[in-house]
């Protein structure tokens, strides 16, 4: 704040000084000065050649006048005064003042709000700023002239914008344990069972699947589907005071019953400045700086500490660069650039109140609100990462040498970059407790029990805690050397060859608080391979990943079959690699930070923890540098191979200039990538092979299941989206037609057809983590057809135009109108069909569906009420997987379209000043784009009533009005 004010006042003083100096100087300027080139008019008869005047004399007279004029303007080496733009003795400044306003009064009510009966979506936005540029001029001290030039911009935003959310909360009776009105997805009553009544079924036949007539465990339903008040967990009851009650009933049944429209408040201020200085003909330098501060007041889903939505946070972003350019000769240039950037954010969270104590959870926990996940479609209570302080700094030094040698244009460059990331974000300092239906279900029978009933009983099947006491300071270096050669091989055929040698060092932690699971290291606690190893211990260095050295070639050919024809054929090839990323958080520091985890020994019968007992009093103390410190947790595993993501791209295009300022471009391209970084949703070396699904209900026993894992001491592996196992292909054909400025109209139309395939995209995890080839399918984000139209039309009205060339007052109304617009049509994305229930003993993370042979999923008369035919799919049986592809190649969601338009009117004020009014309309046709349909398929007995149904359309016209004074 202080810095801000100081800058403002310093600038004010400087400007006042400039203005005063200018006024004084202007008064000394000869009054004979005439304005601009306008004054060139009316030369009388001066243009007429005198009879008999020799041409040489005429030319010499003209040249002499040119010499005189340019000398007077300071444009020659023998000028006695310095050049000033505008011709005066003082510098001229250019720039603009801007103000933009948005208000929901101008907008249409968004479709998703209107469909819920909403009448308003609050929006108040003010955006203002200025830009000024010109020579640096300090009266009586320094006149930058054309040597020192600055640009300074400021922009501020004050905004309040409504955010909407439609979710499901427990209905009023459920909050006190009454589930008599609770129904399953098909609307049938949902029975809730009493976990305290669980007993082994003596009649159970282990050779047959668990069914209602062959139960492994017996369990009694609660009387009248009501949990007695005395059985409700006291912590759960206290937590209910933080859980809002439903406020709408979109349905079906009691689902989608909580609709929030909450304002997000944003305050942003940013400056950017640049100074260019020319020392002499050969040396120049420029300095850039950008400073931004922002406060993001997030929209609140709950207005209390249990809010599972986004957090208030402070963001900063600063960057700058200093560049020196040395022109060694007309054909040789050397430049050195130093860049830095620094950005980060901090959550604003209440750490004064001890919420676990307030809720009555015993144990040594953090003070922030704990997280409760209810796995039956209900909104969570609390959230992860309440505390976040993350700052990223990047420093880069670049040296470039460009020269021309025997027809080759060569550029050599070297770059060194250091990335720094300081991160403090414990996931769950007060714990995370997960509740699913199993403990209140009839054991082994889907579509019974409810996660919220389990929550009320306080029986978590999984609980974890983050013991993180200090930030992690991640560092990484990157070096590269690059050579670019451009050469004309023969007339009309040009080659650009570009090769980049890149050396990327893996990340290290500043204080060596760095670890990974080594799959071959001994784990003494269990006597199995797979233990934690730590940086700088034993034979270990500071890091566990390998430095990567790669060569990135890039070749492009441009061929003009005939230069006069206006045709160009371009051919491109490129191979590129990605380096190890630096991600926020503490991943890779297990042992220095601990994540004690409690898992249910039997996910049908025995809870991991009871809420009222919490984690107990013996909470782990960090650090624990034992190889077994990560046992029973989701252990952090770093890839130690040389594989990093590699992309190979090919492209071929043909451009042709046509009559009438038309340009047509046809192109085809292919991008092929492998070793893309994926997370544990795609690849998990500790997954249970799908063959073991044959063990069926035995898989519900944690000790049995654990022994089926390759590394039984761990739950799963956490890969932090850094395991190189992803593949991706993109094939594209496109056509682009451009019509340039004819009668004020410029149009660009593009159509693109693409097919994108991969082995990782889509909701949830992939089904078979041991067979990634089988997961090769169309990408979930692939929209095959994309068409866009961009246009600028300056109306041909007014002076200098074709129509209504009024020169009187009417020109102020008629002239200066222009329309700019863009329209986009995007075809639908492939639908990802998923099973509503997952009774696989947690072997399969996300379950696909089965395709029913002979039944088409596509409907001829599809509508938002029924977009596809749910009968084309069936729910897999218990302990089996679905046979449908990850994303359906021939079943697509709704297409989307958007049309934006800007109308502007320019009012010239003086020769150098103008005022411009702009109205920007986003989605100006107020089209609501349909969401994708519900793709969950239920069982025959519990079908998903929403399957195939589109719940809402989204979007609405947004208008922004703006004024800009250009000077």
């Amino acid at each position, binding site marked *: 704040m202080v810095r*801000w004010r100081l800058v*403002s*006042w310093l*600038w*004010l003083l400087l*400007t006042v000084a400039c*203005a005063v100096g200018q006024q004084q100087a202007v008064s000394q*300027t000869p009054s004979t*000065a*005439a304005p*601009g*080139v306008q*004054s*060139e008019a*009316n*030369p*009388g008869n001066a*243009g007429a050649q005198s009879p008999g005047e020799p041409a040489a004399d005429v*030319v010499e007279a*003209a040249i002499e006048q*040119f010499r*005189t*004029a340019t000398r*007077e303007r*300071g*444009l020659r080496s023998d000028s006695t005064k310095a050049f000033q*733009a*505008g011709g*005066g003795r003082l510098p*001229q400044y250019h*720039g*603009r*003042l801007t103000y933009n306003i948005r208000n929901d009064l101008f907008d249409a009510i968004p479709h998703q709000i209107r469909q819920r009966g909403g009448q308003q979506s609050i929006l108040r936005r003010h955006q203002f700023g*200025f830009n000024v*540029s010109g020579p640096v001029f300090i009266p009586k001290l320094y006149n930058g002239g054309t040597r020192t030039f600055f640009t300074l911009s*400021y*922009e*501020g935003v004050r905004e309040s*914008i409504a955010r909407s959310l439609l979710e499901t909360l427990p209905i009023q009776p459920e909050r006190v344990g009454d589930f008599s009105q609770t129904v399953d997805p098909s609307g049938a009553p949902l029975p809730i069972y009493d976990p305290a009544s669980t007993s082994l079924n003596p009649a159970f036949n282990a050779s047959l699947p668990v069914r209602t007539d062959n139960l492994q465990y017996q369990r009694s339903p609660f009387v009248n589907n009501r949990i007695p008040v005395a059985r409700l967990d006291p912590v759960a009851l206290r937590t209910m005071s933080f859980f809002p009650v439903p406020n709408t009933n979109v349905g079906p049944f009691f689902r989608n019953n909580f609709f929030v429209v909450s304002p997000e408040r944003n305050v*942003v*201020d940013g400056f950017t400045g640049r100074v260019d200085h020319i020392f002499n003909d050969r040396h120049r330098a420029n300095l850039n700086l950008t400073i*931004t501060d922002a406060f993001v007041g997030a929209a609140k889903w709950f207005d209390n500490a249990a809010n599972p939505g986004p957090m208030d946070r402070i963001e900063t*972003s600063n960057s700058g660069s200093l560049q020196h350019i040395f022109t060694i000769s007309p054909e040789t240039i050397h430049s050195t650039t130093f860049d830095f950037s620094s950005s980060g954010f901090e959550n604003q969270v209440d750490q004064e109140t001890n919420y676990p104590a307030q809720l009555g959870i015993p144990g040594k926990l953090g003070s922030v609100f704990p997280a409760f996940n209810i796995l039956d479609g209900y909104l969570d209570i609390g959230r992860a990462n309440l505390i976040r302080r993350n700052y990223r700094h990047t420093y880069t030094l670049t040296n470039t040498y460009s020269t021309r040698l025997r027809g080759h*244009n060569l550029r050599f460059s070297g770059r060194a970059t250091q990335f720094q990331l300081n991160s403090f974000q414990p996931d769950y300092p007060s714990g995370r407790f997960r509740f699913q239906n199993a403990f209140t279900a009839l054991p082994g029978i889907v579509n019974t029990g409810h996660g919220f009933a389990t929550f009320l009983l306080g029986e978590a099947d999984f609980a974890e805690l983050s013991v993180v006491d200090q930030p992690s300071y991640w560092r990484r270096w990157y070096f590269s050397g690059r050579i670019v050669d451009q050469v004309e091989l023969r007339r009309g055929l*040009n080659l650009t060859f570009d090769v980049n040698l890149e050396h990327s060092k893996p990340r290290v932690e500043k204080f060596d608080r760095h670890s990974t699971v080594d799959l071959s290291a001994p784990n003494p606690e269990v006597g199995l391979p797979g233990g934690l190893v730590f940086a700088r211990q034993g034979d270990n260095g500071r890091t566990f990943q390998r430095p990567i050295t790669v060569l990135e070639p890039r070749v492009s050919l*441009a061929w*003009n079959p005939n*230069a006069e024809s206006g045709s*160009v054929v371009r051919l491109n090839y490129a191979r590129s690699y990605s380096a190890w990323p630096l991600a926020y958080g503490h991943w890779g520091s297990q042992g220095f930070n601990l994540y004690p985890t409690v898992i249910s020994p039997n996910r049908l019968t025995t809870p991991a923890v009871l809420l009222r007992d919490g984690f107990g009093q013996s909470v782990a103390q960090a650090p624990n540098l034992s190889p077994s410190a990560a046992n029973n947790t989701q252990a952090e595993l770093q890839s130690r191979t040389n594989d990093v993501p590699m992309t190979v791209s090919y492209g071929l295009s043909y451009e042709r200039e046509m009559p009438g300022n038309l340009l047509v471009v046809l192109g085809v391209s292919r991008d092929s990538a492998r070793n893309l970084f994926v997370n544990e949703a795609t690849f998990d070396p500790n997954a249970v092979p799908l063959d073991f699904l044959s063990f069926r209900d035995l898989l519900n026993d944690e000790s049995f299941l654990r022994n089926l894992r390759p590394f039984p001491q761990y739950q799963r592996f956490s890969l932090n989206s850094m395991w190189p196992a992803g593949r991706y292909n993109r094939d594209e054909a496109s056509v682009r037609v451009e019509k340039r*400025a004819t009668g004020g109209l410029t149009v660009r139309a593009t159509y693109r057809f693409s097919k994108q395939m991969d082995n990782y995209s889509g909701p949830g995890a992939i089904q078979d983590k041991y067979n990634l080839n089988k997961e090769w399918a169309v990408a979930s984000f692939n929209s095959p057809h994309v068409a866009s139209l961009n246009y600028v039309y300056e109306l041909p009205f007014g002076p200098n135009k074709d129509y209504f*060339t009024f*020169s009187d007052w009417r020109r102020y109304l008629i002239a200066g109108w222009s329309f700019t617009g*863009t329209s986009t049509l995007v075809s639908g994305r492939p639908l990802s069909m998923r099973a509503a229930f997952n009774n696989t003993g947690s072997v399969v993370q996300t379950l696909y569906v089965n395709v029913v042979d002979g039944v088409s999923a596509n409907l001829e008369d599809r509508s938002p009420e029924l977009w596809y035919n749910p009968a084309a799919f069936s729910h897999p049986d218990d302990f089996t997987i679905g046979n449908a592809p990850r994303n359906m190649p021939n079943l697509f969601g709704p297409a989307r379209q958007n049309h934006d338009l800007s109308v502007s009117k320019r009012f*010239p004020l*003086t*020769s*150098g000043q*103008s005022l411009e009014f702009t109205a*920007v309309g986003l989605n100006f046709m107020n089209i609501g784009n349909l969401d994708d349909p519900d793709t969950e398929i239920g069982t025959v007995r519990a079908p998903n009533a929403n399957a195939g149904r589109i719940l809402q359309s989204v979007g609405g016209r947004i208008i922004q009005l703006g004024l800009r004074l250009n*000077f």
Partner: protein
Amino acid sequence: MRQLLNILIVALFLVASTATAEEPVPPNAAKRKQRREESSAPRRGAAKGTPAPSRLIVPVWRPSGIQGPWKLEDFRAKVGATPLTLRGGRFDDSPLLLFVAIDFSADLILTESAKDSLANTLRGAGENLLAGLLRIPEQPMVIVDPTANREQFIEAMKGLPMSGRAGLFEMVEVIAGVTSPLVREHPVRVAVLYLTDSEISNYREDYTNPVINRSDARDLSRRFPDALIREKVSSLTNTLQRSSVPMFVVHLNYRNDTLNEAYQTGLRRLAESTGGRGVFCRSIAEIPVAVGDMVNAIQAMGMLEVEAPGSLSGSFTITLESDLGSLTYRSQFQPPR
């Protein structure tokens, strides 16, 4: 709020200080003022109180295929239905002062190709062409005064270093200001040829309106980011409408991003507003053809001196006709002040 007030005060001072800055001062301002005063005096035969007629310079090209000497009698000019008097003509045998303005900032291979192409073209150009060399945005701008010594020009051009910054937008008015009087006051043809590889983000002044606040996700002010470029082009077009020297642009490096498309379209519009032309090369092979065609077009250009009634105000359209066929010429003018 206090901060906002500070900003507004600063900004207003800036506007105020700019508004008080001088308007461009043309060369020989005092001398021309005297001439203007003389020329604005009632002429013999002019009705009392009627504004004096003004002389306009109209660049014109004959229909292709027409050979032989130009004759003033071949042309007729009018504004609407009102015939205009043709006071004189400078045709392809008249002296031609060609000012070549170099605006090279980025790409050595393209600029070297352009230099070679221009050198080859000038070596074969007519003897009545005198070439002068300007560089922008550097100072001093004048490197070589118009000269018939082609080798002197070529040697100076070859020795020009890269500027590192684009400058065409910033200097186009200045160059129009110092060249327009030449064609008005001397019986010579004058043209300015800009060779540039500039891109819009390489200007010292900011025409790209870059994002300042990366946190501001709902910024619509940059939804159509070419607004500032179009504003600058509109402003320059209004000024150049009063220039008498046609401007020709050969852009060496066609770019197809939104901002540079608006920039390149703007350059073409600027050139056309002065009666000139703009071409854009999409590969190095097109550069020699573009440069050669442009210099040939300049050499083939004629200039007619047209007397326009002093009563004309605002912008007006001149129609030029000829029995020779369809002419290419500058039609839009603003009356001299």
